[in-house]
């Protein structure tokens, strides 16, 4: 009661014309939806926002397991043909009924050559209507992860697309921007009322949603705030009910303030260090690349004091890891999930054995605006390695300049975060990071690493339909990575959201905000 009064007083003082109604959720995050067109961007936060308006054929439940969404059941008719039974009686926000035609339109729009996220359905050739509530999705070959992919394909309305002349996806290069960039018509739990980029996005509840709502919201107001300090200030001053991603150093302050709480969990996003596999290092040209020696890589690993990082920089909120995927992800093996121990003596010994008793010179590069405390992390590791006798040329920069450089393989030791999204499967690590750059594999293996065994495993898991065998193969790949110290996994990023005490918002390791599970009391 007292808290309510305080909130009321705060709201009055701020001269808000709109008082904080019990069923309105006002929340904030550093990013914003860059567009409402599902096929015009690849931004995971944007897709998170869109998922409040759009439904998918299959969706993730509270445990992030795949469950029926707009499709009620499915079967594999042939290895390359999946048949989906659609949910009857579903209506789009504009009142039009949902049918197989909408799925065909959605799939074709997604795999359109001008679609930006066509890679998310890379194996899909086409969709065919069987009857009004049955649809076939045709693949180019056997593929185990179609359902995973479909959790990220937002179902749009064919008639709405036609009516608004938005059948072609928005795309910078073709110069197409559509009605769908700023408007949305899905079947999802909330309707888009207004969208002002970097300012305010308003959604209202979809009373006609096909599923039984587990939330009690009438209205969602999303107001992005890029600056960490300002975002926390907005929460504490009562202008916002919840912020996703509260800076770790502010957690204590927020929990210490009457009427607020912080919920935290390890996220799927795993931060690791990768290496340059070229003959020479950029930091020390003309000499043999020491990182090619497994002992050197292990020495670097042993020289990282993960516990100190966990305790100090991550304030006890992160989870240290020894392998390249997080526990909920298929392919994870608990028995290799133990980091090499922090042991400077052993590190020295390994370096001496490798022929570098006096250390060597290497670069270490990180972003300073992408991951949680990335700059601090990088500097701390540089300090630790320097103490181990290695000359570290440490550099932190904005993601805008870092990622192109990382992508071109211009860095010696580099930091990357990987969440395996949207598939949420270890295959994403095998195909994107472990395999060498060839035939569409190794998109993020920029350091030039080429391990034949890993290339082989990546290609085999891609077509293996037996889940047991597939997981075993992925496990094997992760073991190789660990034994050879191909990467230094650091930790799973913590996920920390702060909210008023009366907000009940469940958290998910994929970092998605799912307000259809939220309660404002």
């Amino acid at each position: 009661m007292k808290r309510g009064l305080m909130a009321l007083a705060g709201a009055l003082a701020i001269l808000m014309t709109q008082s904080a109604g019990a069923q309105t959720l006002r929340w904030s995050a550093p990013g914003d939806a860059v567009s409402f067109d599902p096929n015009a961007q690849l931004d995971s936060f944007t897709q998170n926002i869109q998922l409040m308006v759009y439904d998918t054929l299959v969706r993730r439940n509270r445990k992030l397991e795949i469950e029926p969404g707009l499709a009620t059941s499915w079967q594999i008719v042939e290895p390359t043909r999946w048949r989906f039974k659609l949910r009857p009686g579903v209506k789009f926000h504009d009142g039009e009924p949902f049918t197989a035609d909408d799925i065909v339109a959605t799939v074709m729009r997604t795999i359109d050559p001008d679609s930006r996220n066509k890679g998310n359905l890379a194996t899909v050739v086409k969709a065919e209507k069987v009857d009004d509530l049955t649809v076939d999705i045709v693949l180019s070959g056997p593929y185990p992860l179609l359902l995973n992919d479909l959790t990220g394909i937002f179902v749009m309305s064919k008639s709405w697309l036609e009516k608004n002349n938005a059948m072609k996806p928005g795309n910078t290069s073709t110069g197409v921007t559509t009605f769908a960039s700023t408007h949305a018509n899905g079947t999802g739990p909330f309707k888009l009322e207004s969208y002002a980029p970097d300012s305010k996005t308003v959604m209202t509840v979809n009373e006609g949603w096909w599923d039984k709502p587990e939330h009690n919201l009438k209205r969602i107001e999303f107001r992005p705030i890029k600056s960490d300090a300002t975002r926390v200030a907005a929460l504490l001053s009562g202008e916002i009910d919840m912020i996703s991603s509260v800076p770790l150093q502010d957690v204590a302050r927020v929990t210490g303030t009457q009427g607020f709480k912080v919920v935290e969990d390890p996220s799927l996003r795993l931060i690791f260090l990768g290496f340059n596999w070229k003959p020479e290092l950029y930091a020390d040209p003309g000499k043999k690349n020491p990182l090619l020696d497994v002992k050197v890589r292990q020495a670097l690993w042993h020289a990282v004091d993960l516990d100190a990082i966990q305790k100090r920089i991550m304030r006890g909120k992160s989870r240290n890891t020894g392998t390249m995927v997080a526990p909920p992800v298929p392919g994870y093996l608990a028995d290799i999930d133990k980091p090499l121990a922090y042991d400077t003596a052993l590190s020295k010994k390994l370096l001496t054995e490798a022929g570098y008793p006096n250390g060597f010179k290497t670069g270490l590069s990180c972003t300073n605006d992408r991951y949680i405390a990335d700059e601090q992390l990088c500097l701390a590791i540089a300090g630790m390695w320097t103490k181990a006798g290695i000359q570290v040329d440490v550099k932190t920069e904005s993601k805008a300049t870092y990622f192109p450089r990382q992508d071109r393989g211009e860095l010696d030791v580099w930091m990357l975060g990987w969440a395996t999204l949207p598939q949420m499967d270890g295959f994403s690590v095998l195909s994107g990071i472990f395999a060498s750059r060839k035939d569409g594999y190794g998109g993020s293996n920029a350091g030039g690493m080429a391990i034949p065994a890993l290339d082989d495993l990546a290609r085999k898991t891609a077509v293996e339909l037996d889940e047991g065998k597939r997981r075993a193969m992925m496990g094997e790949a992760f073991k190789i990575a660990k034994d050879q110290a191909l990467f230094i996994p650091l930790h799973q990023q913590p996920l920390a959201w702060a909210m008023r005490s009366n907000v009940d918002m469940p958290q998910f390791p994929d970092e998605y905000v799912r307000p259809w599970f939220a309660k404002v009391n």
Partner: protein
Amino acid sequence: MIASIGSRLGQAVLVMLAVTAIAFVMFRYVGDPVAMMSREDASPAEKAELRASLGLDRPAIVQYGEFLGRTLKGDLGISFRNQRPVVDLLAERLPATLELVIVATILSLAVGVPVGVYCALKPDGALTRAIQTISLVGISMPTFVTGIGLILIFAVTLRWLPSFGRGDVVQIGGWSTGFLTRSGWASLLLPSITLALYQLTLIMRLVRAEMIDVLSSDYIRFAKARGLPPRYINFRLALRNALMPVVTVTGLQIGSLIAFAIVTETVFQWPGMGLLFIQAVSFADVPVMAAYLLFVGFLFVVINMVVDLTYTLIDPRLRTRRA
């Protein structure tokens, strides 16, 4: 007269050409939109295809030519980040920045002019000394420090004012205004004070200097000798004359204010063009950055020209000198 206007116009076009060239050629090398736009695990072929489809694989000069042609047609391209026409984005953000800049300007004039006049009339007063010193603090405080300090005091501790954003806005045609709601005004206060602080100091010092100049001029001495009332001398004669350069400088400073709004808008999450620009910088969103630079350059040229022409019209002596 016409020749003078013509040559000014020619110069303006030249300046604009240079600005566009700088904008484009330099932006061509800031970051790589392809890496930002690709999926986390995009294949190299996928990226090459995207690069080609954006036309980024062609020579810079060809790209500049196209850019210029499109710009002249009023087409500033499509934002890499938002996938929407840059013109729309700028048009959406323009009201926020302009309202902020206008309020900051009015604020700085409303405080700066009276204080400046006071300091000129009482040059040796203790209060004048104090004001002079405080005004130096004003120009010695970085904008971001001021902004964060104000948020800490007025939003977090006292909870009097909102810490971010524009509050509720009302759409009038294509213009979104925060002037018509209470929350709009409340939100405007802290950012505009932050932005006005530097400007205020400048205006105050300028008014003081001009007033002292004018007050020591012959015709004021004559006026005093004739026994005209001091109020009439100070405000009707002296202040009027002292204000002309003040108005000019204030006008010329508007461009700087818009640029300084980048910092203010970042601290207060003010959804204006500066915020758009900073976000474009971190996304390497070339079309938006180019358009912003173009806009600021254009504004400068226009303001300069207007000021120049006004002077030429008012002061005949300058006509011959210019020509």
